C-alpha cells in the first residue's frame, strides 16, 4: 500500500503549477473574461508542458500526469478545456453533456467537438447562439447536436469524470489555502479570525473534506488502471468519485465564501473567480442526485467495492 503520488507526477504537477503561475495564475481567468482570446495563452502553455504527448488511456503514469495537470489547471481555473484536450480523439475534443440541455464549457473555441452522455452515446456539437451563461461559467455555450461516427468507451466516460474531479480538487485546495491565510491575517474584535473556535472547527471540517477528496481521487485513478478492476467497477468508481468531488467542492467553496465574509464574493478574491469558473465542472453533465441514482444498482452488485480483494 502506497498512497503517495509517484515522483514523476509530483514533478509534473510542480512544472505545470509554475507555468500557470507565469501566466498570472487566476488572473489569466480574469483576463479571459474580458478578452476571450487570452485563452490561447493557456493552450500554448499546455502545449509547452507536453499535453500532446500525454495519453491518459495508456497507463498509470500517463493518467496520473494528466490528473496532475488537471489539478494544477483547477488550482488557477485555467481558462481552457483541459480534460477535453486530454481525452481528444483525432482532433475531436470530448465533453460530457446532458442531451436535454446541451451546454459545453469553452464550446465556442474553434475546435471540433464530440459530446456524449453518461452512457457514452455520442454526437457532434456545433455552438449556436449567444452564451446563455453570465458570471457563472463565463465560457459556457449552448449548441446543436448532430450525428457522429466517433465512439466513446465507458472507460473514457469514467476518465472524463475522474479528471474533472482532479480539477475540482485543485480549485478547492487553492480557495481553502487562501481563506486560511485570510483567517490568520484578518483582525476582528481585537484578534485574528483564526483564534475563534467556531472558525477553527469549520476549518477542521473543511480539511476533512479536502483530504477525503484527495485520497478518493488517488484511489479511483489507481483503480482505473488496475487490471483486476472490471469495466462496471471502473464506471461505478468514477461516478462515486465525481459525486463525492462535486458535493465536497460545493461545501468547501461555500465555506470559503462564509469565512471570507463579503470579500469572498468579490472578484478581487481568487475564491470568487474559482467558484464562478468551476461551476460547469460542478454542474455538468448532471447533478449529484443523478450521479447517485446511477450508482443505486451498484449497491449489492459488488461494483462499488468495500473492504478486501
Amino acid at each position, binding site marked *: *500500500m*502506497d*498512497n*503517495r*503520488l*509517484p515522483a514523476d507526477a509530483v514533478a509534473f504537477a510542480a512544472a505545470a503549477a509554475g507555468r500557470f503561475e507565469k501566466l498570472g495564475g487566476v488572473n489569466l481567468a480574469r483576463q479571459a473574461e474580458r478578452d476571450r482570446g487570452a485563452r490561447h495563452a493557456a493552450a500554448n502553455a499546455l502545449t509547452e508542458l507536453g499535453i500532446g504527448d500525454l495519453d491518459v488511456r495508456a497507463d*498509470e503514469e500517463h493518467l*496520473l500526469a494528466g490528473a496532475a495537470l488537471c489539478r494544477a489547471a483547477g488550482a488557477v481555473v485555467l481558462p481552457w478545456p483541459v480534460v477535453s484536450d486530454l481525452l481528444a480523439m483525432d482532433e475531436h475534443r470530448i465533453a460530457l453533456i446532458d442531451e436535454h440541455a446541451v451546454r459545453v464549457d469553452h464550446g465556442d473555441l474553434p475546435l471540433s467537438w464530440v459530446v456524449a452522455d453518461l452512457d457514452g452515446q455520442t454526437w457532434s456539437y456545433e455552438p449556436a447562439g449567444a452564451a446563455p451563461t453570465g458570471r457563472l461559467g463565463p465560457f459556457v455555450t449552448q449548441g446543436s447536436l448532430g450525428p457522429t461516427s466517433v465512439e466513446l468507451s465507458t472507460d473514457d466516460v469514467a476518465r472524463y469524470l475522474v479528471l474533472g474531479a482532479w480539477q475540482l480538487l485543485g480549485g478547492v485546495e487553492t480557495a481553502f489555502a487562501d481563506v*486560511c491565510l485570510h*483567517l*490568520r491575517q484578518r483582525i476582528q474584535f481585537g484578534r485574528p479570525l*483564526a*483564534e475563534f473556535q467556531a472558525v*477553527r*472547527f469549520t*476549518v*477542521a*471540517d473543511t*480539511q*476533512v473534506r479536502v*483530504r*477525503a*477528496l484527495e*485520497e*478518493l481521487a*488517488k*484511489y479511483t*485513478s*489507481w*483503480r482505473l488502471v488496475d487490471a483486476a478492476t472490471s469495466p462496471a467497477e471502473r464506471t461505478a468508481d468514477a461516478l*462515486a468519485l465525481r*459525486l*463525492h468531488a462535486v*458535493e465536497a467542492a460545493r461545501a468547501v467553496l461555500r465555506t470559503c465564501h462564509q469565512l471570507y465574509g463579503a470579500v469572498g464574493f468579490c472578484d478581487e478574491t481568487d475564491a470568487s473567480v474559482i467558484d464562478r469558473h468551476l461551476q460547469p465542472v460542478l454542474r455538468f453533465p448532471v447533478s449529484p*442526485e443523478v450521479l*447517485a*441514482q446511477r*450508482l*443505486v444498482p*451498484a*449497491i*449489492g452488485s459488488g461494483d*462499488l467495492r*468495500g*473492504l*478486501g*480483494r
Partner: protein
Amino acid sequence: MDFDLGDEAEQLRTRLRQLVREHFSETFLGAFTDDPADLAQTQAFCARLAEENLLCLSWPRRYGGRDGSVWEQTVVREEMWAAHEPRGPQYMGVNWVGPAIMRHGTAEQRARHLPPIAAGSVIWCQGFSEPEAGSDLGSLRTTAVGDGGTWRVNGQKVWTSYALMAQWCVLAACTDPEARLSERLTLFLMPMERPGIEVRPIPAMLGPHHLNEVFLDDVQLTDDDVLGPVGGGWGIMRDALAYERVGIARYARCEAILDKLREELGDRFSELPEAIRVRWVRAKVELRATRLLAYAAIAYQSEGIDPAAASVARIATTTADQTVAELVFDVLGAQCLDSGADAPIHGAAEDHWRYAQAATIASGTIEVQRMLVARQILGGR
C-alpha cells in the same frame, strides 16, 4: 501508487473471516450483551487467536506476537470490528496496555503481565477519566500518596469500561499536585481485587459493561505497581493514546452492516424510497473515503508525517458511523427498534445505532480532534 494492502494482509483477512465464521453464529453482536454466554464465547475465541499468535499480532514474537505489519494490523482492526469485536474486552490489553508495559514496565512487570495478555486470559480496564476530568485529563483529582514504598490511593474514576470483569486496571493518579502537568501524574498497575475498590455499573444505552464508576477508598499499592517513573504518567498516557490515534475501524462495521442489510432485503431493496437508496449510495462513498483517510493516516505514521492526519481520519470515521446508523434505521422504518436474534439483521441495526452514539465522544471527543486539525492549519492552541 498502490492501494492493495498486499498478499499477506489479504490472506490474513481470509483467515480471520474463517475463524469468525467457525466460532460465532450470525446472531453474535459482541461480548457486551445481556447474555453472559457471549462474553464466554469471546474468551474462547481470544484463546484460539492466541494459538496462532493473532491476538497480539503487532507485538514482537518474543512476547507472543508475530511482528505484524501495519497493514496486517489494519486488517485485524477491520475484520474484528466488522464482526462486532469478537475479542471483547481484550482490545484494551492488546492494543495499548501491553505495548505500554513493553516500553515502560520493569522486567518483572513484563514477565508477569505480558504472557497472560498475549494468551487472552486476563482482562484490563483503564482508570483515566474522572467526574471532573474528561477530555482534560491533566486536572484529574484521584491522589496516590507515597509512604516508604507504599501508596494510598483515594478518588473516583468514571466511564471505566470492563471494570466489573477486569482483573487489572491501569490507574492514573496525581502524585504531586504542585508539579507541572508533565510531572504531576503517575500510572499504577492495580489489581482489581485489592481492598478499597468498589465498582458500580452505570446504566446506559450502550448496554452492559461499557460504563462503570470505580471508587477508590484508601487502596494500598506498592512501588512494584508503578508503571514507569513516578511523575511520568502523562508521557506514558500520551504515548498510549498514540496507539489509539486512528481509533477503531468503525467504517468496517458500517460496511458489514450495509452489506448484510442489502442481502437480507433482496428484491425489497428496489421498493425502498428513491431518497433512501440515494442516501445509501452516498453512505457507501463516504465509507470508502473514510477508509482511505484511515489508510493515509496509518501509512507513514512511523515517519511522523502529518500528525493531524489521524484526527482527520477519526473525524470522518466517527461521523460516518453515525450517518450509517441513521440510514440503517431509516431503511428499516418501524422495525428499526427491534432487537434480538429475530430482528432484522439479527438486531445488529439496533445494536449499532446505540453504540454509534458514543462514536464522537469515546477515546477523545470530536471537538478535541477538530482542535488538533485546526492547530496544524491555523497555528495557535
